[in-house]
């Protein structure tokens, strides 16, 4: 019984990690429909940004979002305008371009650091809270809490602000949105910027948990795609819940089956869900059929 509780706790906390990584991707993939390989790199920038901020000013990584988030918003917007917007009618070329961005980013970091692994320092590292017999790492609790807050904030933003409504309109039907006078391009730029900024936030919050290497972003990106598609494209709640589905599946499979197989299990579950319910758990039915063609 204790085992079960412990594993469920681990799964929920891991779900928080996936949820915070996926929330930005969900916006980008769900609204702009770009398979953005570079999304993991935005997380990497967040991680290294927190490290750089600490080296430069001694700042605690939990304060680093104050700098990193705006920087990544601008970076995301610029990448969208310069690279992805010109390719909006060639979705496959977009995939390819984001892949190029990924290579540039990984290898630029490698060239700068020589591949030496870095870690940040924070007062919270290694601290844990005990819930009865269950141990919980404090830094993971923070991630879970922020993931919840950010999801709520994004949901409110999309529901109640003018820009948010525009984003939703474009996600649902680009052509109709354009006919309604929404400036689709501006919405996309905004969305990409927000998506990148959220990934940067995730990176900062994850920095106390991980040792950074130039390739680390890739470790997040594939599960994050699974989370987003599983939860349902364009559904903020879906990405949040999807995070926990993947987190719990991984924790249970890792403990009861074999840690070496957990990766396979989450992707099998992912494919199974996708096949049974292609729109994801919370997605709008039919979204998956929009596919690549409906881009004009």
């Amino acid at each position: 019984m204790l085992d079960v509780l412990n594993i469920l706790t681990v799964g929920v906390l891991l779900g928080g990690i996936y949820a915070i990584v996926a929330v930005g991707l969900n916006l980008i993939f769900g609204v702009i429909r770009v398979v953005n390989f570079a999304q993991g790199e935005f997380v990497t920038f967040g991680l290294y940004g927190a490290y750089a901020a600490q080296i430069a000013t001694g700042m605690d990584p939990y304060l680093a979002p104050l700098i990193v988030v705006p920087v990544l918003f601008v970076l995301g917007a610029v990448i969208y305008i310069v690279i992805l917007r010109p390719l909006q009618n060639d979705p496959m070329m977009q995939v390819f371009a984001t892949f190029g961005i990924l290579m540039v980013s990984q290898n630029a970091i490698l060239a700068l650091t020589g591949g030496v692994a870095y870690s940040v320092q924070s007062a919270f590292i290694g601290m844990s809270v005990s819930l009865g017999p269950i141990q919980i790492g404090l830094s993971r609790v923070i991630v879970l809490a922020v993931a919840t807050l950010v999801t709520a904030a994004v949901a409110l933003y999309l529901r109640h602000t003018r820009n948010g409504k525009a984003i939703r309109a474009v996600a649902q039907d680009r052509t109709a949105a354009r006919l309604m006078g929404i400036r689709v391009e501006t919405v996309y730029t905004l969305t990409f910027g927000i998506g990148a900024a959220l990934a940067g936030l995730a990176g900062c919050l994850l920095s106390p948990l991980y040792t950074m290497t130039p390739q680390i972003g890739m470790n997040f990106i594939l599960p994050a795609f699974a989370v987003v598609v599983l939860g349902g494209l364009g559904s903020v709640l879906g990405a949040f819940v999807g995070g926990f589905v993947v987190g719990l599946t991984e924790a249970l499979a890792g403990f009861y089956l074999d840690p070496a197989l957990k990766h396979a299990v989450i992707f099998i579950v992912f494919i199974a869900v996708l096949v049974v319910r292609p729109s994801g758990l919370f997605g709008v039915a039919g979204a998956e059929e929009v596919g690549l063609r409906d881009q004009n």
Partner: protein
Amino acid sequence: MTKTELSRTPRIGSFAGELPVLGAVLAALGLVLLFYSDDSFTLNTLAGTFLFAGLATSWNIIGGFGGQFSLGHSVFFAIGAYMTGNLFLKYELSPWISLLPAMALAAAVAMLISWPVFRLRGPFFSIATLALTEVAMALAVYFSTWTGGAQGFSVPFKRGLENMIFAERMNNALLMLGYVAVTLLIVCWLRHSRLGYSLQAIRDNEDTAEAAGIAVLRTKLIGMGLSAALMAAGGSLYMMYVRVVDPYALFSLFDVGVKVAMITLIGGIGTIYGPLLGTLLLIPLENLLRAELGASVPGGNLLVLGVLLVLTALYLRRGIIGSLIGLADRMKAARA
């Protein structure tokens, strides 16, 4: 004037009509080999280039003609390599023979796993194929009887044509050229076959194709099976060429799965010679960058390659072939 006009209208053409061009292309590639016949380094680069040309041409069948943007073709590549490697090690079966079961197995697996996944379209399909790669790799690491687990296995250096193992790089290059020839020949046929037209109709509009009476799922499955079988043949050749395999190399997203798609996009997706052109550009460039920059700045070669890829995406949006056609169109418009 009328002459250019004629060449501009989409030619229906025929399989036989493609053969002279194919023959000329292959002869040109052969001449390149002859030209470098005493430069082992270049011959080896060419062998690798031709291998990828064949792989990309195979991918193009379902990815380009069929419009199903698979990022999981490394699975079929790996099936070919494992099958040939195992049959060679355990039963000393010549790779010339084991090619056949390798291709058959890959086609069967491809059709089986694609059946459900073909319900998905566009980026969803791509992501699902990515996930399949991850599953396959994890299983290959875990169930080690046929794969050697994480450590993989290697095939001893037993020279001989029957083993496809050569000391002379020229022979490797010729073998790979043969692979390119076979894949191109099949694509030339496909381009003008009922299957090919159906695939292209599905790519252009799945619903219209269905309305026009094309059995969409069956066509996609056959296209995928053919593509996977040829991919597996490439895997078999790779096995006997590099002779060391492990799951991380075979299922590599970047070195196989994404690369074949990327090469095709660079060259011209859905065209017969696009994948070949893309490979002729990308693989030697990659080798050159690695040789010149790889040792001086860590990651320097891949950094430059990444920048070039982004630029290619931006400025060769329709691939080399598409851009050439576009250029010809503009020149014609200017003259008119």
